[in-house]
């Protein structure tokens, strides 16, 4: 069969069907080469475990020639096409089989591809299982309420705390004057998350205030705090503070005591 050019879709254009009233793009049908290969095998009611994969080569190439492939995954499609063509060529030229290899036994390459297919099939089945359950019978946690906690005798906080809090705020240096034009923010939450994770990679715990002490600007400190909160939200760290305004202990989740 003559090889035809493979149609290519730019970027992710086809991977995300655009839903809506009467307007839908749904291309390509197969996001990955393994998905396509598995479909070709199963739609012919062949057994993944025993079908010589070379037999599926033509169907695979034909599909590739007719249907566009999205650019990011093109190389995977082509790599598997190449593997299939190679498998087929070996079957067509039995004389070329390496000595010792018997007709009909799997070549190492075929083994690899078959194992990938089997692995992928298991995941696809698991995904189908998940799909059947998606949101149908969700387990719901509870939103806590103020009234949950019994009116335990709480020691009243000194109201001077409030004024002290404002005095501290007033004493803090004013933020730098806003720049006259928009400049790229030099410090991102992502950067500070990495910095915090690095700091945690040693003992698994770090005092927030000591990290903040190393910050060069108010905005860097603010971003660091946001990064810490983000990590807490993702449950990667736990925050502990035993006394008001005391040291805030940041602990990597899973860190031993």
């Amino acid at each position, binding site marked *: 069969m003559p090889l035809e050019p493979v149609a290519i879709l730019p970027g992710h254009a086809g991977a995300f069907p655009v839903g809506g009233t009467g307007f839908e793009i749904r291309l390509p049908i197969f996001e990955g080469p393994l998905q396509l290969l598995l479909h070709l095998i199963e739609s012919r009611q062949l057994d993944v475990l025993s079908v010589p994969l070379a037999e599926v080569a033509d169907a695979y190439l034909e599909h590739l020639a007719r249907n566009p492939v999205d650019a990011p995954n093109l190389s995977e499609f082509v790599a598997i096409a190449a593997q299939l063509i190679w498998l087929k060529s070996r079957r067509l030229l039995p004389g070329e089989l390496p000595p010792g290899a018997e007709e009909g036994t799997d070549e190492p390459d075929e083994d690899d591809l078959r194992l990938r297919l089997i692995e992928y099939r298991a995941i696809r089945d698991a995904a189908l299982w998940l799909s059947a359950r998606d949101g149908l019978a969700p387990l719901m946690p509870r939103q806590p309420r103020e009234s949950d906690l019994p009116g*335990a005798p709480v020691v009243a*906080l000194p109201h001077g705390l409030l004024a002290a809090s*404002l*005095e501290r705020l007033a004493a803090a240096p004013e*933020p730098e004057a806003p720049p006259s034009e928009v400049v790229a923010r030099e410090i991102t939450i992502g950067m500070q998350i990495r910095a915090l994770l690095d700091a945690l990679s040693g003992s698994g715990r770090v005092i927030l205030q000591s990290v903040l002490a190393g910050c060069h600007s108010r905005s860097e400190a603010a971003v660091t705090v946001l990064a810490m909160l983000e990590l807490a939200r993702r449950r990667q760290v736990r925050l502990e503070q035993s006394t008001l305004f005391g040291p805030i202990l940041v602990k990597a989740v899973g860190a031993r005591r």
Partner: protein
Amino acid sequence: MTDRTATHDLAAFYEALLFVAERPLTLAELAEHASVPPTQAESILETLGLELEAGGRGLRLQRMGDEFQLVTAPEVGERLAGYAAREVARVTPAALEALAIIAYRQPCTRSEVDRVRGVDSDYVMRSLLHRRLITEVGRRDTPGRPILYATTFTFLERFGMTSLEQLPALSSDAASKVAASTGPDGEASQIPDAG
């Protein structure tokens, strides 16, 4: 399915429903959610209450008039009190700042709090609302009609005060910091109809 199984299943449903509900539910609502007449809903709730009690569970069904809610069992109250005391005592510096700003300049909007603190206060405001330390008291009559917040009675209790006049005077620096920043919301001192 026997009647008893059906009742038990509906009791489990009510337990879950009351667990996720954000407020006590009325008998009428509970009946509607299970598509049963109120009398049957009542007997299902009775079953639930008995099952919780007989099983020695950590939760109980509480009835107030025709409203129902799940609450913690009295047997565990003492143990929980220790936990509760620790939780309630947790006021973060950020929350304290926001609370202080609101206390001294109430009523005020969230963006005023943001401006004084120099950072976004969305989360702390929600946590203060959740703890009933502040409450919405109306809207400022400026574009966008931002919500105005004020402190509550719970706030006074929490800080051992009987009135706002007991708040200590601020230093001039702090006072100007709190008072000065009026922003796009308009006049900070304009008090709305709390209506």
